[in-house]
Every structure is written in structure tokens, then in C-alpha cells.
């Protein structure tokens, strides 16, 4: 398979939100049986068909880099983590729908990754009070993923969904809400799958462009 270029996507989020399960589901099309702590970074590859169904269809790889750890880690861990943030084509921000703090922490996560700074304390985040301009000028596209969708009671669903809608607006990103233990959410043909392939195709477009230049 020639012309397989590199598309690197970071998967970021708080400890325990389900990044490893998500990556496993995306790459192996299987549910992760025994999730355990990610030490350092674990990579997995997904084979994606670019422009599926069209005559320009081409197969390429997406590398999903699942970086473990929490925001409160020691600065030595943070500076070591920064090694993984180089030459990134896209970022998937994962948050736990049952835990509000994990959604709030996503601002800091994106800052850490985008600025490759070991102390992202320039912007103090408190419920959306942050500088949107910083995000407007950044060229790395984001995808917002909310996990543990099944654990939200029916009554609270609308409230949670409005909250995530605000988040995705802030990030200027698409959002997907799912449950990593159920492959049904990403089955072919669902709107989630469509969003996902659109996101990955866009990444490839951008990576191709930068290479050609």
C-alpha cells in the first residue's frame, strides 16, 4: 500500500474518562475487557478509508496517541508528556459525561497540548471565562468526545447534552457522545461514525496540504 502518510491524532483527557477504551474501540472494533492505567503513552492505529465509496477511495492509517496522566501531575511528568505533543494533526478531547470537572479540565488540556508549555497557567479557567481568541487562531482541529453516555439517567440527558453543546461551541469542534463498552455507537452508518470519518478525512487533507507545501 503506497502513499500511506502519517496522520497523528492526540487523545487527551482526565484520568479515568475512558481514553484507552475509546482508542481500543476505534482501532480494534472491540470493547476493551480490562482497562488499566496508561503509563506514559500508548499508541494504536486505525485503518481508515479516505472518501469511502467514491472513486478516489484510498486507505490510510490514523495514529491515535493516548497520553495518560492527570493535570495535577508533577512538572517532571508534564515536561516528559510534552514530548508526545509534537507535529500533531488533530486532537480528540475526551471527557466523562458523568463528571463535570473532567469537562472543565478540557480547556487546560487543550492549552497544554497546543502551547507545549509545561505550565499552562496563563489562562485561568472558571466555567467558560477563558480567552476564545486563543482558540480561534489555532489550526489544529479538535473533536470532542463524551463518554459513559449510558450511565446518565434519562431525566438528566437533556441537561448534559446542552452543557456539551456549549463546550463544543467553545472549542469550535464537533462532538460525539458515546459509551465505550458498546460498539453499537460507532457502527457504520450512525451519525457518530459519519462525524468520525469526516474528522479523520479532514485531518488527512490538512496533513497532505502541509506536506505538499
Amino acid at each position, binding site marked *: 500500500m503506497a502513499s500511506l502518510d502519517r496522520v497523528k491524532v492526540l487523545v487527551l483527557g482526565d*484520568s479515568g474518562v475512558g481514553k484507552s477504551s475509546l482508542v481500543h474501540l476505534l482501532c480494534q472494533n472491540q470493547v476493551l475487557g480490562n482497562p488499566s*492505567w496508561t*503509563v*506514559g503513552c500508548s499508541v494504536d492505529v486505525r*485503518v481508515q478509508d479516505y472518501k469511502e465509496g467514491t472513486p478516489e477511495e484510498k486507505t490510510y*492509517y490514523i495514529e491515535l496517541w493516548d497520553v495518560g496522566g492527570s493535570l495535577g501531575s508533577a512538572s517532571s511528568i508534564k515536561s516528559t508528556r510534552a514530548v*508526545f505533543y509534537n507535529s500533531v494533526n488533530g486532537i480528540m478531547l475526551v471527557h466523562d459525561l458523568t463528571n463535570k*470537572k473532567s469537562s472543565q479540565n478540557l480547556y487546560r488540556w487543550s492549552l497544554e497540548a497546543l502551547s507545549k508549555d509545561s505550565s499552562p497557567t496563563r489562562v485561568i479557567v472558571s466555567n467558560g471565562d477563558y480567552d476564545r481568541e486563543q482558540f480561534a487562531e489555532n489550526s489544529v482541529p479538535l473533536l470532542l468526545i463524551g463518554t459513559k453516555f449510558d450511565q446518565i439517567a434519562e431525566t438528566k440527558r437533556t441537561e448534559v447534552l446542552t452543557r456539551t453543546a456549549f463546550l463544543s461551541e467553545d472549542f469550535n469542534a464537533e462532538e460525539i457522545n458515546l459509551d465505550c463498552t458498546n460498539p453499537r455507537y460507532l457502527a457504520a452508518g450512525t451519525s457518530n461514525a459519519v462525524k468520525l470519518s469526516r474528522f479523520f478525512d479532514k485531518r488527512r487533507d490538512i496533513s497532505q496540504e502541509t506536506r505538499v507545501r
Partner: protein
Amino acid sequence: MSFLVDSIIMFTSQVLFFGFGWLFFMRQLFKDYEVRQYIVQVVFSITFAFSCTMFELIIFEILGALSSNSRYFHWKLNLYVILLVLIFVVPFYIGYFVVSNIRLLQRQKLLFACMVWFTFMYFFWKLGDPFPILSPKHGILSIEQLISRVGVIGVTLMALLSGFGAVNCPYTYMSYFLRNVTDSDILALERRLLQTMDMIVSKKKRIAMTRRQMYQRGEDQNKQTGLWGMIKSVTSTQTGSENLSLIQQEVDALEELSRQLFLETVELQATKERIEYSKTFQGKYFNFLGYFFSIYCVWKIFMATINIVFDRVGKTDPVTRGIEITVNYLGIQFDFFYAISSNKSSNVIVLVLAQIMGMYFVSSVLLMRMSMPLEYRSIVTEVLGELQFNFYHRWFDVIFLVSALSSILFLYLAHKQAPEKQMAL
């Protein structure tokens, strides 16, 4: 009249402590998590409040602040409440949350939690047998029994942590132990880490592609039936799956390597930061303190040995030294708790912390008795009954010594291993 005033003072201080404990919980312990069950926060704050009140009462005792009747009353009250919390409430909730984390036992949570609690009570009671705490004058469920057991556990914990802290503190602060780390070392290690990640990626690509081809060929195979089809499918998939398992093994080994490299890089970064820190004024100050403190700790270990060897009950109080060391060490302890806590177990961790804290405080009161001049001892002895205080001091010395020696051994081994790994790179 004065009793009422005193009670109001005590009550307000308790409320203050409660609020402080609540804030501490919110800001420090649960910084990154969402509090889902408020009962944990309440229990933690209550334990904290009553523990602090006990210390406050001792201070009042020494200062002669409130009238002695009300002091006596509050002592008793406080002691009963804290014992109730430490023995009944907290262990039950710990059992409950541990059980609710295990998926299998979800159904009968309450039942299992009660079972856990009964097991705890059984062991708690058995604890009394080998120790000389029981005196035949008192009945079974008297306060002396409970306190003596709680005291034993608390003293053991305190001694363990003091021993470890006594050794760990100078080790951390003194720059003598810091290895020399240059920037190029770190860069080289980072490069190796990235190279390993790239290798993992390329191997995983091969696996994914092979699997995809097999899958596609498998679909074609399904159309072919008969002998030819079977033979063809066997031979092709055979080599395919053999290759796959080989590559998968390589990938597993590489992933393990990448984890190791990551951890080593983190350690090097941490060492580099410590070296930089030691060059600042603050660093130099702490370095000096470290030397001082290490001499102090060595002296304490020496004294503990002498006490045991010569069968002497320490005249100097173990509590103040215990408190000094553990107060310095408490900061490091909380880091440990952060490291091992996660979303699921955070409740359990906090409750365990509350339990340890409560037992600490009760045993500190026990040990403090020795250090107080005679006139103040009376009230403590009155309230706590005829416990064998000398026993506790001896026990503290023993555990302290054991803990200090084992942590010296442990740190020595860890220190030795690290430079060896450096050489191997």
C-alpha cells in the same frame, strides 16, 4: 452559667474546625473529582473536627482556660463521639464503598458492607489479646477497652510513618544524594522514547494491514467451498496468523520498553528540577535544614535503640518528635494519596485518610500524657482510665526503629538500582 459559656465556646470551635475540614476536602483532596456522595465529605469533616477539638482540650487543660467541670464533661463527650465515629461509622462506610466498587456484589451492597464491618470488629477485638492492655477490673465494653485498641493501632501507624519520614526527609532534601543529570541525557532519552513509539506504530500498522487483508481474503474464502477452498484457506491463514502473533509479541515488548523509558525520563526530569531548585536560595536553605534534620533523625534512632536495649522508658516524649517528623512528612503523604487515587477509589481513599487521622490523634493524646507535668496528667488519667501507658512508649520505640531501618534499606536499594540502570543505557 460558666458551663454554658464554655459549651458555647467549644461548640463554636468545633463548627470552625468542621468548616475547615470541609474546605480542605474541597480544595485539596477532591480538586480533580466531582463529589457525588456528600456523606464522605461530612464524615471526613466530622472526624477532623473532633480530632482537632481533642487537641484543643489539652491546650485548654494546660492553660487552665475553662472551668474544670466543663472540661471534664467535654473530654468525655468528645472521646465517646470520636470512638463512635472511628469504630462504627468510618469502617462501615469504607466497607460500603469498597463493596460498591466491586461489580459482582452490587446487588446486596448493604449486606456485604455489614459483613465487612463485622469482620473488622472481630479482628479489632482479637487485637487486644497479645497486648498487656486488659486489666481484670473493667468490663467488656468499657471505654478503656476501645481506647486501648484504637491506641495500639494508632501508635503503630504513627511509629511506622515517623520512621519512614525520619529517613526519607533528609534523603529528599540533601543534595548529596542527587545524581548528576545533564540536558543531553534527557534529550537522548526522549529521542529513544520517540523512536520506540515510532517502532510500535509501524508494527501496529503492519498488524492492522495484515488483519485487514486476512479479513478481506476471508470474505472471499467464504465463497469458495470444497476441498480446494479449504486447503487454500488453511495455508494462507496459517502463515498470516503466525506472522501476526510474532509481531504482536514484538509490539508487547516494545510497549513495555516505552513505559520504562517514559518512567526513566520522568525521573531524570525530576532530578534535574531538584538540582536547579537546590541552587536557589530556598533550595540552599532547605539543604542546610536537611543536614540538620538528618543529624536529628539519626540521634532519634539512636535514642530509640538505647531505650530498647537498656529497657528504659523514654523520658523524652515520643509524641513531639513523632509530630515533628510526621508534620513534615504529611505533605509527602498527600502526594502518595493523589498518586494512588482514581475516580472510583477516591471515596475509599478519603475515608481511609479520615480513619488514619482519627487514630493518629487518639494515640497522640495517649502518648502526650507522659510528656505533661504531673498536675495535668490527672485529668487525662481520670478520663482514660488505667491504661498501661509505659507499654505504648515501648511499642512506639520498637515500631519506629523497625520502620526506620527498613526504610533505610529500601532507599539504599532503590538508590543503588538507579545508577545501574543509567549505565545500562
